[in-house]
């Protein structure tokens, strides 16, 4: 498996609290992505990064922020968690360029109660 790990793997949090998920890679890949996986919606892009301190929004970015202060770490923060953010979150990494494979983390199951 590519060197990509997510933490925590499981989390239960209360509505209104901030939550930070971490994605760590050892592959030195330029791109990092955060997706959420929901039944009937597949994988939807939240935010992505194309370099240190270079990030951009995906299709479902409201209520989320990200930071990438170094190549290996990409943090996803739920500023004030809501029940609609209960989901499985996946981090992915890839090199830049054409025909590039994405490598995924094992996912974080987040429950907001």
């Amino acid at each position, binding site marked *: 498996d590519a060197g990509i790990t997510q933490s925590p793997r499981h989390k239960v949090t209360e509505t209104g609290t901030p939550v930070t998920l971490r994605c760590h890679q050892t592959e030195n890949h330029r*791109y990092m992505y955060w997706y959420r996986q929901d039944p009937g919606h597949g994988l939807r892009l939240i935010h992505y990064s194309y370099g240190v301190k270079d990030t951009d929004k995906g299709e479902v970015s409201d209520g989320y922020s990200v930071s990438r202060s170094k190549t290996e770490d990409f943090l996803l923060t739920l500023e004030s968690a809501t029940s609609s953010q209960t989901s499985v979150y996946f981090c992915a990494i890839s090199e830049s360029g054409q*025909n590039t494979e994405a490598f995924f983390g094992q996912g974080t199951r987040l429950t907001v109660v």
Partner: protein
Amino acid sequence: AQRVTQPEKLLSVFKGAPVELKCNYSYSGSPELFWYVQYSRQRLQLLLRHISRESIKGFTADLNKGETSFHLKKPFAQEEDSAMYYCALYHLSSGTYKYIFGTGTRLKVLA
């Protein structure tokens, strides 16, 4: 806008039967398409990519630009093929690369 459509949420077939998982895309440029698979309790992983024109685990997928499709096929399904399958479009937008995934199709292969 770029879009990937997988019309079937669930596909059930018997072992040994042919399988076809449908994928259609919407993209104005030259598409780069992939199939990813997620087996139970495992992370998503690449199954195949259109540019390689290869067969992985007996699966093939042909890009049909006229029909904007990239259907995944296997002539004889096996029980171990049961998994969630995602079609993905990889594209360059505003100078950065992104993957767009379909909603996924769960394949169940029945004994």
